[in-house]
């Protein structure tokens, strides 16, 4: 009885927290649809009186969002490909071998995770500028973001690989396959879920990346949506509905993807999901 009541209380608290966290998202959506005066009305309205649906098309046109989102997509896709391509092999090695050097490598990888982007950007900027990478700024950002995302990816995918029994691989070797063949035909299909989910998370992270893009990409035509949004907000901004409409267009696809894939993402993260 009492344990039931505790459960309901905890559930209630969780729901309240979730509402508090989600409130800004809700506020973004309603503000986008409100008119200028309604935004500043006191008391505030929670449902817009006369929703203005035209705002999305207007903002898309005026701010040239097509190219911003395209740049975000390029950066996110590039980051995902580099991270998944290099990180999968790395995670596999870290999962299969056990010795002191592996422990050292794991420690270093975790250290990388600790360093904040705002700290790393200055040395990166100087370095990139010296080797001429700033001439291809989107590629420079892809490299920087990949380096930042790699530890997270490697740690997640390593856990997935560790859940694949070594005997399966040995069976494949005895059955006549090479090491690479065994990895591709046995280990990878079994770790597929974890690798995919981690790659998607990296994609989403890179899609919203701001610090590196803001510092490295000077050309407006190559900037991603996050930097574009930042440029939209000047010190004296009053067109909050347009800004919120921009944000809505930017986030909604990611949110939708997350909701659709939610079950697989959770399953992939809590993997050991083999049997």
């Amino acid at each position, binding site marked *: 009885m009492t344990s039931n009541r505790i459960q309901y209380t905890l559930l209630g608290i969780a729901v309240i927290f979730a509402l508090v966290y989600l409130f800004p998202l809700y506020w973004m959506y309603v503000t986008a649809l409100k008119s200028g005066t309604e935004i500043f009305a006191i008391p505030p309205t929670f449902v817009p009186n006369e929703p203005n649906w035209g705002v999305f098309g207007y903002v898309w046109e005026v701010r040239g969002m097509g190219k911003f989102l395209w740049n975000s997509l390029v950066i996110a896709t590039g980051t995902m490909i580099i991270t998944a391509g290099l990180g999968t092999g790395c995670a596999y090695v870290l999962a299969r071998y056990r010795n002191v050097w592996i422990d050292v490598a794991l420690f270093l990888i975790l250290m990388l995770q600790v360093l904040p982007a705002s700290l790393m950007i200055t040395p990166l900027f100087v370095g990139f500028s010296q080797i001429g990478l700033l001439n291809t700024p989107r590629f420079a950002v892809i490299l920087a973001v990949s380096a930042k995302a790699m530890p997270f990816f490697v740690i997640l995918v390593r856990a997935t690989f560790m859940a694949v*029994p070594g*005997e*399966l691989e*040995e*069976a*494949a*070797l*005895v*059955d*006549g*396959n*090479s090491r690479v*063949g065994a990895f591709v035909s*046995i280990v990878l*299909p*079994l770790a597929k879920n974890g690798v995919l989910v981690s790659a998607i998370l990296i994609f989403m992270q890179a899609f919203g990346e701001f610090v590196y893009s803001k510092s490295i990409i000077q050309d407006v035509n190559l900037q991603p949506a996050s930097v574009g949004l930042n440029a939209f907000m000047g010190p004296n901004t009053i067109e909050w509905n347009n800004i919120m409409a921009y944000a809505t267009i930017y986030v909604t696809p990611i949110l939708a993807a997350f909701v659709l894939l939610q079950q697989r993402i959770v399953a992939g993260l809590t993997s050991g999901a*083999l*049997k």
Partner: protein
Amino acid sequence: MTSPLQIELKAVNKYYGNFHALKNIDLAVPSGTFVALVGPSGCGKSTLLRSLAGLEETSGGKMEIAGVDVTDMPPRKRDVAMVFQSYALYPHMTVAQNLTYSLRIQKVAKAELRAAAEKVAASIGLTELLDRYPRELSGGQRQRVAMGRAIIRNPKVFLFDEPLSNLDASLRVQMRKEIRALHDRLGATTVYVTHDQIEAMTMADHVVVLRAGVIEQQASPMTLYERPTSKFVAGFIGSPAMNFIEGKICDNGTSVMLEMAGAPKLDIVQKVTPNMPVTVGIRPEHIRVAPSEECDFSLPVTLIETTGTMSYVSLGTAPELSLMLTDRTVFSVGDNIGLVVDKARIHLFDPKTEQAIT
């Protein structure tokens, strides 16, 4: 043995860091032989099997399979098939795909694949299950798939790594027979690792007893049973285990005095140095109950375990003595019973070296 050697190991050594896991292993297996590697856990039997499969690198020595030096060959070139303890079925493939995995690597034509899978499935009773996934099978069925995957390749050598240890007792007895029947039908050469001496004794033509990385003795099952060369082998082979009693050879050299209540004397068949201390080994099945006037010694009964076909009786002495009777017991706990030992089947060991005295 006249058949050619299918497996030959010469002075194979294996180190894990400083740990010497296999010490100078010599083994010769004629074609068509069923060899069991048996020993307590950590004795190196699995390491030896995995070295044969190429999953472990050896640190020294030479390995030949069917006359080809495979010492430095990767597993895929050795043409051996292995059945793992966990079966190691590929979870994302159906039974048919599991069976034909090795054939697909060899690029066998698609049409032949299904036919091969069906043929093997029929021979081990899996026909109905070809399109199922491993997770949908029972333990015994998985075991069969693992065996089928080995059979389909027609390999030079079959390797089994404790394949029955995850099955329940009755299924284990049945699979024991099936594996041996399969071996005979295929005319295969098999190396079978087990910690269960009964599996080794019942299935194998040749049993290799390992202990701490050394081959303690290798021989046919009955030779191991009748003429163990060391106390370790004597105690390991046979169930319940052999009784060991300390003793001393008498002045005449033809009888031994046991160090237990009443200091009974047993005549022995072999001739031994007088006054030598010895460890006397007597199997539980070689002691029988006798009327007091003809018995060698008598002891009180402390425990009777009855299985229906047999009774295991424990007798109060230190260390405890056990005997195995097939006839009904007519005594109960606490009774003193007279015992006769089968003199021809007494084993003597040197207490220091633990080697058999011959």
